[in-house]
């Protein structure tokens, strides 16, 4: 179910009305669970079972870790983690395994290739993992408490995993951030300005920018790119960079707005990533819920930066490589992740071995451009299968004599401009005087965005991150 579909709006409105009916206030969590299951089942009814089984495993294991035999805690936690990872690997990576190692025309190879990919499996599996690891480690015991009552724990955990705003494309929630919020919510406490701003920004980025740009960036695919002029091919990659940001940041903003309607705070998933002047800063601003997850649950357990320089570089590359593979069952995602891991490692190497000049405005801009270019080039790996990536770069070199497509150039630039302004405004707002002015007149921007949503939306399409 798409956030911009009529059926979703209907479900949202009905859920909202029922949720705030005073005599149903004790059932608020159950109401949201029911809506979430309908939301999920709408597109993949048969795979709802997998979501429920996955949630049940995490409910049972987390309960046992706290309330079961204390000597068995480690065993429960390890088993739970292994089961979660096994389910994820089986459903998500079997086709890749089959394509790489088996004959996919018949037999077991064909069976693996035909397995359906449950929507959002990477997101809800990671959330389950965070629950088990946090409960086991006791690191957040002051805020993350597991109920003695199994039924209360059941509802809380099922709600945590299935809450529809984040269910299929994040932000990836961590149990210790979400559990303390679960409780009775009141209509009068809704922060309408926050909801309005997030929803308008989110729908604008998705429906006006991403849904329009996608009609120009599809030329990036094979064999279309073979017929496009060099400059246009470069511009398309730039357009895709803007599109993927708008698509995913748009989704996350809508998720934040909707969750807030029901009284819940989700973490900001994007923080103006394209102004970053270093790769580490980029990953603190891009898909924040994933990068913090990888840092907390993979990079630090691997040793982080505590075991010498070489080990730090290796840990960065491993973490990002696995993070890349988390996105999808294709080697190109792994390469994309390794590419970012390498960029982070090289950056760390320079910081460790060279005395770099103090950052001033000029160096920040220069580094910002370098980071943006390197990140933008990486999207080619993200978008195309490995075998097409080299061909794409070859075409950039070979197609210099082909005629430009003026329409493509004009519209990629037009649709990218708001995202560029969005980032520049963030920088400009560092100045209190400008911040005051933008705060005072931001209603004009919201009016304009609403107008563009109404009259200039692209054909509604799936969110790119739905496939992960």
């Amino acid at each position, binding site marked *: 179910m798409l956030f911009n579909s*009529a059926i979703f709006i209907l479900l949202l409105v009905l859920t909202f009305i029922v949720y705030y009916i005073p005599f149903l206030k004790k059932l608020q969590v159950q109401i949201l669970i029911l809506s979430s299951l309908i939301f999920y089942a709408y597109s993949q009814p048969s795979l709802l079972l997998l979501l429920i089984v996955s949630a049940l495993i995490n409910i049972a294991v987390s309960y046992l870790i706290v309330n079961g035999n204390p000597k068995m805690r480690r065993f429960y936690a390890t088993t739970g983690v292994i089961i979660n990872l096994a389910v994820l690997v089986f459903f998500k990576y079997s086709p890749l395994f089959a394509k790489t190692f088996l004959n996919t025309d018949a037999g077991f190879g064909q069976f693996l290739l035909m397995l359906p990919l449950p929507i959002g499996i990477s997101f809800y599996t990671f959330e389950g993992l965070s629950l088990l690891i946090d409960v086991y480690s006791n690191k957040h015991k002051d805020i993350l408490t597991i109920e003695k009552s199994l039924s209360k724990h059941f509802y809380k955990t099922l709600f945590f995993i299935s809450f529809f705003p984040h269910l299929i494309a994040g932000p990836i929630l961590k149990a210790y951030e979400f559990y303390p919020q679960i409780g009775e919510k009141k209509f009068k406490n809704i922060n309408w*300005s926050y909801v309005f701003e997030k929803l308008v920004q989110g729908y604008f980025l998705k429906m006006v920018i991403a849904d329009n740009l996608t009609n120009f960036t599809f030329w990036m695919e094979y064999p279309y790119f073979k017929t496009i002029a060099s400059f246009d091919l470069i511009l398309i990659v730039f357009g895709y960079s803007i599109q993927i940001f708008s698509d995913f940041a748009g989704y996350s903003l809508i998720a934040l707005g909707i969750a807030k309607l029901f009284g819940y705070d989700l973490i900001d998933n994007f923080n103006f990533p394209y102004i970053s002047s270093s790769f580490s800063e980029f990953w603190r601003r891009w898909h924040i819920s994933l990068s913090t997850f990888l840092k907390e649950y993979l990079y630090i357990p691997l040793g982080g930066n505590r075991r010498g320089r070489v080990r730090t570089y290796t840990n960065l590359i491993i973490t990002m490589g696995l993070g890349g593979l988390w996105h999808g069952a294709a080697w190109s995602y792994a390469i994309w992740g390794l590419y970012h891991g390498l960029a982070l490692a090289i950056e760390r190497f320079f910081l460790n071995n060279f005395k770099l000049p103090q950052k001033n405005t000029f160096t920040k801009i220069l580094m910002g451009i370098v980071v943006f270019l390197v990140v933008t080039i990486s999207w080619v790996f993200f978008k195309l299968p490995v075998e097409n990536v080299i061909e794409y770069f070859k075409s950039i070199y070979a197609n210099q004599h082909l005629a430009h497509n*003026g329409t493509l150039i004009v519209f990629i630039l*037009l649709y990218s401009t708001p995202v560029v302004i969005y980032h520049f405004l963030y920088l400009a707002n560092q100045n209190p005087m400008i911040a005051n002015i933008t705060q005072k007149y931001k*209603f004009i921007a919201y009016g304009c965005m609403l*107008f563009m949503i109404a009259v200039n939306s692209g*054909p509604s399409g799936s969110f790119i991150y739905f496939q992960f």
Partner: protein
Amino acid sequence: MIKKGLFVFALLFAAYSIFLVLNKQQWRSVQYQYQGNIIKSDRYIYADVTPKAAMIGTSLSGLIENDSIPGVYNLAMPGMSMFDGFNIISKRKEAPSKIFIEINYFFKGQNNDFAHAYDSPISIFLNNNFRAMRPENQPMGILRHIITSKPDGKKNAAAIEEKELPATVFNELLQNEKKKYNHPDTNVIKNAIINLRAAIKTIQETNRNTKFYFFEMPVNSSLENLPLAIFTRESIKKNFPSIPLMHLPPTSFKSRDGIHLEKKEVSIYLKYFREFLETGK
């Protein structure tokens, strides 16, 4: 803030609606292929009078400019199927008296998202009642029209001149097509015949006078007699013996990428098509 924002929105929307009422011209506002298909379809559905003839097909016949064959409305849609064209034709009570069906890829399935967009009562209501919400009136498209048009209303001469692809690229694309043309999925074609028969029957039930014609768009001449082309052609002839099939012109075509004609080749084919319309041969 919310009230002020909504006020700005209402103001902009009203001003834009007035602008559109005062400028009732047909904007050349297509931004991209899919939107071009929507605009084409909207203009067909919301036209005051049903066109006398319509052409349906894929990107192959989509290359034919809409006003280049007098009386024929081109509903061939790049990236989509002739079944999408059928779907749009069925949205008007009255069908055209002649429907030309491109057969090259007639077996390509309907685009369900596109079809659903025309089944949605909300979208139909908005399209009918708010001109500003029709895709052809999107501000970005109109901005483009204004920028690229000369003061006399003609299209700016900056239109792109086609340049040939490098020989290696052309050969690679042609080889890709040859692979596909050498291994047709006959089951898909057989199923499509059933769907095509049903689509024709649906139109005929409400419009007894509508006549159907099949035509085959020229592709690179090396593809014309490969298994896919032959099987498609023969299937159509065998299953619809009463519907005339316009044969390929006796000209050898190169095409731009194996299957899509160059502009000058489209002109050659148009001449042939018009002759067929006039003489029936």
